[in-house]
């Protein structure tokens, strides 16, 4: 009796599992062929034919190579790109996650909970790439762009010198090199990752070039987001309001002119020829606020930002201009003219997108995914920029914090008045030979 129950139950299980796998395993090859058939991508009785299928484990994609029927070209397939992509992402994969059984609550909704688990259908976010080299190659990436990437040490290892991470596409890691493209525009609606991205940049640069970097931060949101960097030795000034901003910008212009003269005297063309390692990065967060200054200050500030953009690059100045509200009146025209790279998070309207990217697109980015943006340089790519955790920032920048907790303007005032060597504080340090003999 027992034996009979046991064997029949095993058979039942096997049949069930078999059915599950049969309905669940989607044969992508068949799917693609079916789609091609239905779209009408065949000639007479010659149909699309699979030639080879290879799986790439490193980048998590499957490559299909098809023989295209005579009379059809790559263009025909390109036209049907979205049909293929949507077909592959057809919400049809049923996934039973055993993990979810752990969270069951034993009350009267139990049967509904179990039903939910059994009927759970996974969202597919496959990404498709097509290429033609005599054969039609289709690459199907398992995952599209991730909705969230965390900034960690492994990302830090992939950038060096003056590169900063921009983000991940579905297959590659994109970075921005400030040596090649000295000015970067950043735009996007509020809460879509602008400030997080700026923190990425500052933290990465502090980590990679601690001794060669100097920073001027203009934060017109009241200085809150950059407050944690205030005491880093690389930060030369942190401006929080209109007056401080102008002060900082004026100081920068003086430095610009000084360097210009120095370079001219020595016959250097730019900072590379001068072989200086030092770079000065100027970050303007909430640049739109400048238009809110009174008219004299506004004109002056816009002029100065324009100056830095226009002549600063060769003299070792790097500019990141950042705004929530991109309008033509907000960007100083000199900044716009000199930028070659822009990172644009979600925007409200196509007009705004046009101001930043010179084309539409940023308004169509998905709602509710911070960090998703368009990075435009030599080409245009949709990326997910990494999210940086505040505690991670602290571990990176901690070694660079100078112990003096007074604000920088105070230090300058002190050195003017006392004239004594304040840098070592009130402690004297002696290095001497210990002369230990063995």
């Amino acid at each position, binding site marked *: 009796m027992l034996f009979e129950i046991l064997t029949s139950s095993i058979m039942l299980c096997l049949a069930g599992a078999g059915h599950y796998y049969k309905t669940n395993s989607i044969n992508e090859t068949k799917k693609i062929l079916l789609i091609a058939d239905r779209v009408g991508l065949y000639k007479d009785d010659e149909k699309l034919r699979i030639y080879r299928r290879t799986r790439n484990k490193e980048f998590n994609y499957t490559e299909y190579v098809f023989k295209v029927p005579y009379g059809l070209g790559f263009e025909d397939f390109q036209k049907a790109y979205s049909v293929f992509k949507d077909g592959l992402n057809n919400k049809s994969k049923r996934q039973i996650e055993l993990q979810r059984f752990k969270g069951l609550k034993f009350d009267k909704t139990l049967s509904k909970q179990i039903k939910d688990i059994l009927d759970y259908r996974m969202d597919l976010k496959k990404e498709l790439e097509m290429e033609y080299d005599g054969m039609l190659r289709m690459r199907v990436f398992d995952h599209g762009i991730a909705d969230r990437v965390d900034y960690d040490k492994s990302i830090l290892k992939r950038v060096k010198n003056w590169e900063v991470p921009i983000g991940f596409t579905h297959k590659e890691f994109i970075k921005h090199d400030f040596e090649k493209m000295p000015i970067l525009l950043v735009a996007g609606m509020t809460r879509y990752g602008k400030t997080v991205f700026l923190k990425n940049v500052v933290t990465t640069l502090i980590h990679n070039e601690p001794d060669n970097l100097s920073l001027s931060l203009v934060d017109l949101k009241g200085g809150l987001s950059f407050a944690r960097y205030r005491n880093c030795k690389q930060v030369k000034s942190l401006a929080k309001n209109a007056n401080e901003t102008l002060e900082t910008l004026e100081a920068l212009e003086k430095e610009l002119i000084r360097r210009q003269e120095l370079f001219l005297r020595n016959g250097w063309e730019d900072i590379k020829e001068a072989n200086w390692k030092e770079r000065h990065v100027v970050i303007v967060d909430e640049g739109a606020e400048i238009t809110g200054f009174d008219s004299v200050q506004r004109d002056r500030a816009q002029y100065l930002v324009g100056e830095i953009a226009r002549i600063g690059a060769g003299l070792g100045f790097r500019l990141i201009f950042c705004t929530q509200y991109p309008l033509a009146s907000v960007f100083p025209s000199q900044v716009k003219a000199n930028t070659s790279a822009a990172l644009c998070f979600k925007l409200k309207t196509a007009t705004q997108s046009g101001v930043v990217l010179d084309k539409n697109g940023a308004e169509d980015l998905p709602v509710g995914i911070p960090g998703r943006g368009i990075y435009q340089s030599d080409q245009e790519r949709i990326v997910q920029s990494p999210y940086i955790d505040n505690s991670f920032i602290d571990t990176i920048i901690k070694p660079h914090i100078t*112990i003096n907790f007074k604000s920088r303007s105070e230090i300058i005032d002190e050195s003017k008045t006392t004239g004594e060597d304040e*840098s070592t504080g009130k402690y004297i340090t002696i290095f001497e030979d210990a002369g230990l003999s063995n």
Partner: protein
Amino acid sequence: MNQKQLEKMNRQESILRSLKMLDFLTRSQIQRIHDLKSDRNAQRVLKQMEEYLNVIKDGEYIYYLNAKGRELVDCNKVRKRTGNVQHYIMRNHLYIAFRCPKTWLNERRIISKSVSGKEEIKCVADAVFMKGDAHCIVEVDNTQTMKRNEKKIEKYRILRQRNSFGMMAPHFIWITTTEHRRKELIELHKGLNIQVFTVADFI
């Protein structure tokens, strides 16, 4: 005296000088510092210098100056065959790894006191050198207890807060014996610039 003999003497003297500076050196270390090419050549060169050197045969040959050698390079410090030769050897690994910095100095005592002379902190670093404007402090952890290391790091932390190393953040470079100790040391140095090597990195 012909050219060849002069060159030979120069090389011998520079080897003796580095022994004066670094106390003990293994054959392969001398080979690397003075670019003696093959093992065989290095052994030949050192064999010729026999009269100036004492040798400890401990796996690899470890050389140090004898009385005649000390005389030649004007060295007052007498070295004896001790149990902690390994300590010196480990430090030399770092010296070579950092490309023999010119500013390298062994056994530096760092004293920090307030102007009035109180609150004195003394600390002996195994070696100190400069990397650009930043101080690099080298510590060898061979037979020390972790407790002592911890105390030392605490001292360095205070020194750093007192700005003893100038405006640039100092780099701490440790060499230790095992992978586990490496992890522990990194843990202890939270918030400081640190690099930890193990002996295995150099063999």
